[in-house]
C-alpha cells in the first residue's frame, strides 16, 4: 500500500472515531446548521491564516472557535430565531472569505481542495494532530458527558440536579468547532457536517442507550471511511465525497435491515 493512502486512512479513521460521539450530540441537539456555519467560515479562516502568516488549518481552527464562542454567547437573545442568527453568520463569513480571497492577488488558494477536501494530501503531522487533538476532544467530552446528556433531556431538570448547563453547552460548541476544523482538510467545507450527522443518524436504529449510539456512530464512521477511501482509490474519485457517499449508503442499509 502506498504511504499516502496509509496516511489518508490513518487521518480518516481518527476523524471517524472522534466524529461519532460528537455527531450524536449534533443529531440530538439539532446542531446541524451550527456545523454548517462553522464550515462556511472556513474559507475566511484560510485567508486570515495565510495573511497572518500561519497555516490555513490554524486559521480555520481559530476562526471556528471564535465563532463558536460568539454564537454560544448570543443564544440568550430572543429577538431572532437561532437559525436566522446562524444564517447571518454563516453566509456573512462565506461572503467575506470569497471577497477577501479576490482582494489578495498574491495568495493562491486551491478552492476545490478546500471545498471537497484533499485527504490524499494529508501529511503525517496532520495525522498526529488529528489523533492527538481527537484524543483530547474525546477526553473533554467524556468529562462533560453526564452534564451534556442531562442538558439534552431537559435543561431545567439538569440545572435542578446541579449540572452546569451553560458550561456544558459552551464546551460542546467549542469542541464541535475543533472537530469541524480538523475534519475540514479531509472531507472539505461542503461535506464536513455529513461526517458528523450521517453515521450518528445510522447508529440511532441500532442503539438503546445514548452510549451505544455513540459507539455505533464511531464504528459506522470507520466503516464508511474504509469503504469510501477504498472506492476513491479504486475508481479515482475525490476522497471526501466518496467517504460521505459510503456513509449515506451505510445509513440506507442500516435502516433497511431494521425495518
Amino acid at each position, binding site marked *: 500500500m502506498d504511504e499516502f493512502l496509509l496516511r489518508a486512512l490513518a487521518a480518516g479513521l481518527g476523524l471517524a472515531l472522534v466524529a461519532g460521539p460528537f455527531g450524536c450530540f449534533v443529531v440530538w*441537539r439539532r446542531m446541524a446548521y451550527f456545523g454548517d456555519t462553522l464550515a462556511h467560515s472556513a474559507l475566511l479562516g484560510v485567508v486570515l491564516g495565510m495573511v497572518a502568516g500561519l497555516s490555513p488549518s490554524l486559521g480555520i481552527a481559530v476562526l471556528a472557535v471564535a465563532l463558536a464562542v460568539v454564537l454560544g454567547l448570543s443564544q440568550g437573545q430572543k429577538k431572532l430565531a437561532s437559525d436566522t442568527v446562524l444564517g447571518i453568520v454563516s453566509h456573512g463569513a462565506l461572503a467575506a472569505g470569497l471577497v477577501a480571497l479576490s482582494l489578495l492577488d498574491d495568495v493562491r488558494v486551491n478552492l476545490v481542495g478546500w471545498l471537497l477536501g484533499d485527504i490524499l494530501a494529508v501529511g503525517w503531522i496532520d495525522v498526529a494532530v488529528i489523533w492527538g487533538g481527537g484524543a483530547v476532544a474525546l477526553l473533554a467530552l467524556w468529562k462533560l458527558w453526564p452534564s451534556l446528556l442531562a442538558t*439534552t*433531556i431537559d435543561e*431545567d*431538570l439538569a440545572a*435542578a440536579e446541579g449540572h452546569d448547563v451553560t458550561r456544558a453547552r459552551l464546551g460542546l460548541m467549542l469542541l464541535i468547532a475543533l472537530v469541524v476544523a480538523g475534519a475540514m482538510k479531509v472531507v472539505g467545507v461542503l461535506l464536513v457536517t455529513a461526517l458528523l450527522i450521517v453515521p450518528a443518524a445510522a447508529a440511532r436504529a441500532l442503539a438503546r442507550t445514548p452510549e451505544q*449510539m455513540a459507539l455505533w456512530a464511531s464504528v459506522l464512521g470507520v466503516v464508511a471511511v474504509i469503504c469510501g477511501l477504498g472506492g476513491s482509490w479504486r475508481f479515482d474519485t475525490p476522497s471526501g465525497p466518496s467517504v460521505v457517499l459510503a456513509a449515506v449508503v451505510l445509513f440506507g442499509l442500516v435502516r433497511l435491515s431494521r425495518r
Partner: protein
Amino acid sequence: MSRLPGGKPMSALVRLDDVSVSHDGVLALSGITLTVEPGKIVTVIGPNGAGKSTLVKVALGLLVPQSGTVTRRTGLVAGYVPQRLDIPASLPLSVRRFLRMAAGKGDVAAALDRVAAGHVMGRQVRDLSGGELQRVMLARALLRQPDLLVLDEPVGGVDMAGQAEIYDLIAGLARDEGRGVLMVSHDLHVVMAATNEVVCLNRHVCCAGHPENVARHPEYLALFGPRVAASLAVYTHVHDHAHRPDGTVEHLPDGTVEHIHVHGPDCRHG
C-alpha cells in the same frame, strides 16, 4: 445550616420572601412569601398562567427573582419532577439508563417498584404513556434521596386510581421520611386531603393556610364551596377583586361582586 438575617438557624428547606419575577417587563409573580419545612407538603393551586411553574423554578434556584430573597438550606438536595419532558426522538434512552442518570448508585429497581412501575424498566422512555412517565420521573427524583421534592403537576396523565396511589406515596414521603414537598396541582379535592398548606396563586398569593383551618372558616365556602363538587379540574375562584389581563389586581367597586370572600390569615392584599 443557613442562617437568616438576624442569626437564627434556618429550619426551613426553602424560604421565599417577598419575591417578584417579571418576564420582559410583564409581572409573572408579585410579592410571594412561602416556606417549605421538612416533613411538610405545600401545594400551590391556581389557574393557567398564574405563575405556578415560575414559582417552582424560583424555589429550585433555576430563575433568579428581580426582587425579594430566596433562601435554601445549605447542602439542600432537591428532587424535581417537571410538568413534562420532551426527549428528542433521536435520543435512545431506556428507563434504566434514565434512572441511572439521577443516581449512579442506588437501587433503581426498588425505586421503580415503589412507584408501582417496575414493569417499564426495559422500555424506552419515549414509549411510556403519560402516567408511566410521571411515575418514572418520581422514581428518578426519589433516587436522589432528596430533602425537598418539587413536583409540577405530578399526576398529569395518571388515571384516578393511580392519582390516589401517587398522592398517598407523596404524603408518606413527607410524613414518614421527613422530606419537604412543594407541589403544583389543579386538583382541589386532593389538595385538601394530602397537604399541610395550600397556597392559592394568581401571580400574587390570593390566600394561603392550613387546609383544615381554611375549611372551618365560613369564607371557605365562598372560596371553594359551591364549586368544589364540580371543579375537579377547573379552578374557579370568586373574588372581591378582579385580575386585569396582565395579572395586576383591580378592586371592584362595592355592589358589583356577587359575594365577597375574606382572605386567609396569610393574605397579603386587600
